[in-house]
């Protein structure tokens, strides 16, 4: 199987889907699912394959290189699988909306271009796929209309800014080293001056930072994630921003080698520390902002930024454990964040688009499976032991503590406690509390929504108990980067400085849980009562009013909200406004009076001659 065939299937599938939709909606749905399934299966087949394919396509002088190794395999499979689930989830979600052909083909195009990015073996094809991803994402973000339009605008402008900056970096690399193929490029920068490396890092980091929503570049993400269709939000949050992560890993470990990267700068001012600190800021501020959100998807969007901060922190810190933690967290985040967006999407679907946390509640009685998905999702997000998020965070914390960076560790850990607050708020306000009367007749989510939710929930638990599987892959990626691999076993990590064994914890939790359950079961049975048989100081429970969800963390929010103005967003908006004002000002040059125009021409002429006569510049 060639990589080019994989890409051809991906891109061709996207195109064909559009035209199939003109024939029959049903066939198109099946075809879209089939294509994404095929992508996932084929991508998975490349496990442990390491190959390169070079095509001289005549794109200027650049060869078109595709390559697969464990690193890109890991990302490709994650992308394909999450993509598959999102497509399955879309089946019902999108059915009643207009423009479904467009939706599916763009969805497949985004997935295809992401697979293209991770499989490309040189920076030009990387860039091409990158831009295809950018604009197709833009079209999908704007799909929902209304507020989605400005969200899409924000996204594409930031994205284009990032990518043009990256283009400068790519071209600069090409002019210096005359090649853009990773394998030839890697190691060449060993001899470059540190100033040049810094220049390259900054250029690339802006582009990847925009996509990965690193703190001062994150402003596009909250509106984009919240306004996009939910299945696409899960793609956005689960894998698309991780393409930024992929880029950063590519930059640090492939283009610039890790030892070069670690030796840039000294102590607290070294590049790795600065990026780590940026990562920590990315964790902390968005976590607190997420606390203040009332829109379920916007809350998750801010949470996505915060989790991306963990990934950046882990990768930039640069020890082999932290990098493993970062990459593992990428994988975990892809699972649980797309799961959470699907959960919110299912609720949104059944409640006809309500995602305001203040007006939902009590849906656990109506949508139990969705609730369980949400619960497991937030457990993974928080990192409760036995879910996958735990191991990755544990790795990051551990290496930060043992390498004497307790303040970074502190900030990261504090972020976790913020995560508990907002994620409980999310699940409480949607599923717990009193069920409003208008939702009494809600049905449970349809099968095509429950299936991905269930599978992803199981995956969270599975990889939480058996973290060895992904860590094994990550280990071989790391040894590919020339780093010291971790000592792992299937249940966890067994290094000298700290061991973790999920089997022990799992057994303990299981046994103790069963024991407690037995005690519970043996003792007197309890009567099941409804939500209106509730303590209300003896009075009857008022319907629709007896729910505490508005301003759930009001005391804290009152304390912190003055400090949490999103001034970065304001800054960008004022920048945009000032550009617009400048444009309006400059437009005045064209007065509409032809006399002025003639004067311009004469003045231009006269000025040039005058300059030449006086100073003889030319």
């Amino acid at each position, binding site marked *: 199987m060639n990589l080019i065939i994989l890409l051809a299937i991906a891109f061709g599938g996207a195109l064909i889907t559009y035209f199939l939709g003109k024939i029959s909606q049903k066939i198109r749905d099946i075809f879209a699912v089939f294509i994404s399934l095929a992508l996932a299966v084929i991508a998975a087949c490349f496990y442990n394959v390491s190959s390169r394919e070079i095509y001289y396509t005549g794109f200027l002088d650049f060869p078109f290189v595709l390559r697969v190794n464990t690193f890109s395999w890991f990302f490709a499979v994650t992308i394909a699988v999450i993509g598959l689930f999102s497509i399955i989830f879309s089946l019902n979600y999108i059915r009643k909306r207009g423009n479904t052909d467009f939706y599916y083909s763009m969805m497949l195009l985004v997935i295809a271009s992401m697979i293209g990015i991770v499989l490309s073996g040189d920076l030009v094809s990387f860039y091409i796929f990158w831009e295809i991803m950018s604009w197709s994402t833009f079209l999908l973000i704007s799909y929902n209309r209304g507020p989605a339009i400005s969200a899409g605008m924000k996204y594409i402008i930031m994205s284009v800014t990032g990518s043009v900056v990256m283009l400068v970096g790519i071209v600069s690399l090409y002019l210096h080293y005359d090649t853009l193929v990773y394998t030839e490029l890697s190691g060449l920068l060993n001899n470059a001056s540190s100033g040049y490396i810094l220049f390259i890092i900054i250029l690339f980091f802006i582009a990847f930072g925009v996509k990965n929503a690193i703190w001062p570049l994150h402003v596009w993400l909250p509106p984009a994630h919240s306004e996009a269709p939910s299945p696409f939000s899960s793609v956005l949050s689960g894998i698309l921003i991780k393409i930024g992560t992929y880029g950063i890993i590519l930059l640090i470990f492939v283009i610039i080698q890790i030892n070069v990267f670690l030796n840039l700068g000294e102590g607290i001012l070294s590049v790795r520390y600065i990026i780590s600190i940026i990562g920590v800021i990315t964790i902390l501020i968005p976590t607190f902002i997420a606390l203040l959100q009332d829109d379920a998807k916007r809350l998750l969007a801010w949470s996505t930024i915060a989790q991306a901060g963990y990934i950046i922190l882990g990768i930039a810190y640069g020890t082999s454990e932290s990098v493993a933690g970062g990459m593992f967290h990428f994988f975990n985040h892809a699972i649980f964040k797309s799961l959470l967006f699907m959960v919110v999407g299912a609720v949104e679907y059944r409640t006809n688009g309500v995602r305001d946390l203040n007006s939902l509640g009590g849906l656990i009685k109506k949508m139990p499976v969705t609730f369980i998905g949400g619960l497991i999702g937030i457990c993974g997000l928080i990192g409760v032991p036995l879910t996958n998020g735990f191991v990755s965070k544990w790795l990051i914390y551990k290496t930060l503590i043992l390498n004497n960076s307790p303040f970074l560790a502190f900030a990261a850990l504090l972020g976790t406690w913020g995560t508990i607050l907002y994620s409980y708020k999310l699940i409480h306000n949607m599923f717990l509390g009193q069920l409003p009367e208008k939702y009494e007749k809600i049905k449970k989510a349809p099968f095509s929504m429950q299936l991905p939710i269930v599978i992803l929930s199981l995956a969270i638990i599975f990889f939480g108990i058996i973290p060895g599987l992904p860590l094994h892959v990550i280990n071989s990626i790391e040894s590919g980067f020339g780093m010291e691999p971790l000592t792992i076993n299937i249940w966890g990590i067994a290094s000298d400085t700290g061991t973790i064994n999920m089997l022990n914890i799992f057994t303990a939790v299981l046994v103790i849980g069963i024991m407690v359950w037995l005690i519970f079961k043996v003792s007197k*049975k*309890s*009567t*099941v*009562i409804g939500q*209106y*048989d509730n*303590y209300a*100081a*003896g*009075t*009857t429970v008022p319907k629709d009013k007896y729910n505490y969800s508005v301003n759930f963390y009001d005391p804290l929010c009152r304390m912190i909200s003055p400090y949490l103005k999103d001034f970065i967003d304001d800054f960008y908006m004022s920048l945009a406004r000032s550009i617009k004002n400048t444009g309006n000002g400059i437009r005045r040059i064209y007065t509409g009076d032809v006399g002025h125009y003639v004067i311009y021409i004469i003045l231009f002429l006269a000025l040039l001659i005058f300059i030449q006569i006086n100073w003889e510049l030319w």
Partner: protein
Amino acid sequence: MDRNKLGKWLQSPGKMGQKYSLHALYFCTGCGIIEIPPTITARWDAERFGVIPVATPRQANLFLITGYVSVKTLRPIIRSYEQMPEPKFTVGFGSCPINGGMYWDSYNTIKHLDKYIPIDGWIAGCMPRPEAVFVAVTHLWTLIDKGMADGYKKYREDYHYYRENQEKILGKLEWPPLFSSKKM
């Protein structure tokens, strides 16, 4: 007091538990509540009998109705009583719940509380002193020992009677009749 005798404990721990851990819900309907603070604080210290005040009916198994019961307060009383887990005991405090007391001819006072919920014991007086509460508690112990503090069983058996009486006064009640929901 017999609380230190291990033999009895081993015979029926459940019953002993009920006796010595009376978590009381004070329903401050009227002036009777004024006698409760001294009862539970340093002067008389009800906690040495295991009687402590709790906040919600769910945690309580002793229901003290302190003072006269107006029509308006009857509904919360019934509601709270029904929300308490079984076994549960009720004590009417003062003469008003017994027969209306000084409000015997008031148009909106409940004269015979035991028509609406079962009462396990009465403390007569206006007001009864805190010592009377202890007398009531010790009396309740003997009743529990003999298995005669069975108001909650009566309520279950004669639910129709009570519900009828309640609805006669209060009109149609908002909540569905009890004892129809299934066990789990």
